[in-house]
């Protein structure tokens, strides 16, 4: 694996793994994330995975206190780059963990998906065709960002891509499934936004009381399944 290090300020380092979005790069991002989870060195505060990079936040004070006396003149950043290089050279294999596939049940249309008609009209499809296309996609979560638990998902069929609404909504309910340009996404918390809403999931995507607060993680595969309004109500009740 080729690693390029770049400083992000004086307390973090960005490990660059590529310059374009691809499943292969995402795999490398996950391998590094898994290694960091496994090793958990004391001097790492946390890491932030993204499309083509993993950024490691470290504690320079901890490092100056604990690094061996031979390296006293070395500044924390250089020490960190060397350490990460060694840490990551231990394994060059990809993560053993089987990628997870997570089913996201969606109640399409009506009150839960007020823009479904619009998406259908703009693409010259029927509502049914939009739903079928949305469900048949092979989706991959590239990263979590923007908002707590918010997945950047790749893999939507361009047939149903639709520009954002010209007037964003002031509030979009949690669980809303939408389309913005060529991307599809699910809103974990209530926020304002301009996405075209085609449905809603009863699942909780972000729960601060859980040890892993975000339901989805980088590298997850997603399958959207269809449920009725009645099932939505039942699942919502069960998820509480």
């Amino acid at each position, binding site marked *: 694996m080729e690693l390029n290090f770049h400083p992000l*300020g004086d307390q973090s380092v*960005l490990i660059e793994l590529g310059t374009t979005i691809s499943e292969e790069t995402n795999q490398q991002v996950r391998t590094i994330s898994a290694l960091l989870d496994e090793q958990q060195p004391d001097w790492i505060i946390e890491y932030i*995975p*993204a499309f083509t990079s993993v950024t490691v*936040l470290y504690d320079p004070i901890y490092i100056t206190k604990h690094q061996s006396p031979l390296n006293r003149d070395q*500044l924390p950043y250089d020490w960190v780059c060397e350490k990460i290089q060694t840490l990551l050279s231990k394994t060059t294999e990809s993560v053993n963990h089987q990628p997870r596939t997570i089913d996201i049940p969606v109640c399409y249309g009506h009150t839960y998906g007020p823009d479904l008609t619009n998406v259908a009209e703009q693409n010259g499809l029927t509502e049914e065709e939009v739903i079928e296309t949305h469900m048949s996609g092979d989706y991959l979560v590239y990263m*979590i960002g923007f908002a707590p638990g918010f997945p950047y998902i790749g893999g939507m069929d361009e047939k149903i891509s639709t520009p954002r609404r010209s007037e964003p909504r002031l509030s979009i309910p949690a669980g809303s499934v939408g389309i913005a340009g060529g991307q599809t996404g699910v809103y974990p918390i209530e926020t304002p936004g301009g996405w075209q809403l085609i449905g809603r999931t009863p699942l909780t995507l972000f729960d*601060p009381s859980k040890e892993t607060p*975000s339901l989805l993680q980088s590298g997850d595969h997603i399958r959207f399944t269809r449920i009725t309004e009645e099932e939505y109500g039942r699942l919502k009740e069960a998820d509480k």
Partner: protein
Amino acid sequence: MIHVLKSGLLTSIQDLGRYGYQKHGVIASGAMDSESHRIANLLVGNHPNSPTMEITLMGPVLEFQEDTCLAICGGNLSPMIDGERVSTWKPVYIRKGSELRFGKPKEGFRSYLAVAGGFDVPEVMNSASTYMRAGIGGFKGRALQKGDCLSVRSKTKDSKLLLEKIKPKDKNITFQEAGWFVPPEFSNYEDKKSSIRVMAGREFDWFDEKSQKNFFQHSFQIDSKSDRMGYRLTGCPLSFKEEQSLLSEAVTFGTIQVPSEGNPIVLLADRQTTGGYPKIAQVASVDLPRLAQLRPGESLSFTQISHNEAQRLYLQRENEIKQLQLGIASKFR
């Protein structure tokens, strides 16, 4: 208990931030001026990460329903106890029933109020910081409001020693300041007005030559739309050599990113975890507390330093704080 009689402009409970959850998209939050937050805690014998009250420009009115010790650091927003001026950067003994209020802001933008023991709010994802947009942490996930009642955690050994030391003998005295204070190199605001030191950002070369020069030669105004998430800077729009798009990647406290319209945004405590705008520069950690004390409407300029210099300055500052911490601890014994 501490009773909020008036909320002030924006008063929230913060600690040093929520770390370990940014990979789940959870922002770090935390005190904007972490140095003042830490020193306020140290002055009352707390752990540096104990929850303090971050007070913005126009302070709250608070009624103390128990005898305790407090310290106010950071900007000077004219604190008064029962109508009498009280010093900042000093431990202060306050009697039950006394009222702390703030007057006309004198210098700086944010004050940090620490009370012995620290404010007792539940830890959410290992932090007491308030993440207002998501309604997480702090006091009920929001800024303080009139009528709120805050409890205080149990006092450390140091806090108890301090309380005994500065307690006034005369029962009619409503508050008493300690006879010592933090040296001026931490509290002097005149020194804090100088230029903010930055390192070049990862996409510095994406900007045209004129913009690269202007960024350091011109001053910028902090726009009124600025908040805890970021300072929006106006006065000198920057432009790119060519249109290039960037994939979202991690950003941090002090990252200066530039959207296509050209006005830079300095990301602060409530920044998102990742960003997709080109980064022209990054504020050196040592200057973040100073930056956080600038008010919207004020202007600032940037000076370039090397990455190594930024690291050295940070280590040096932390060493000074360590010395201060030892000095303060010696006062409790």
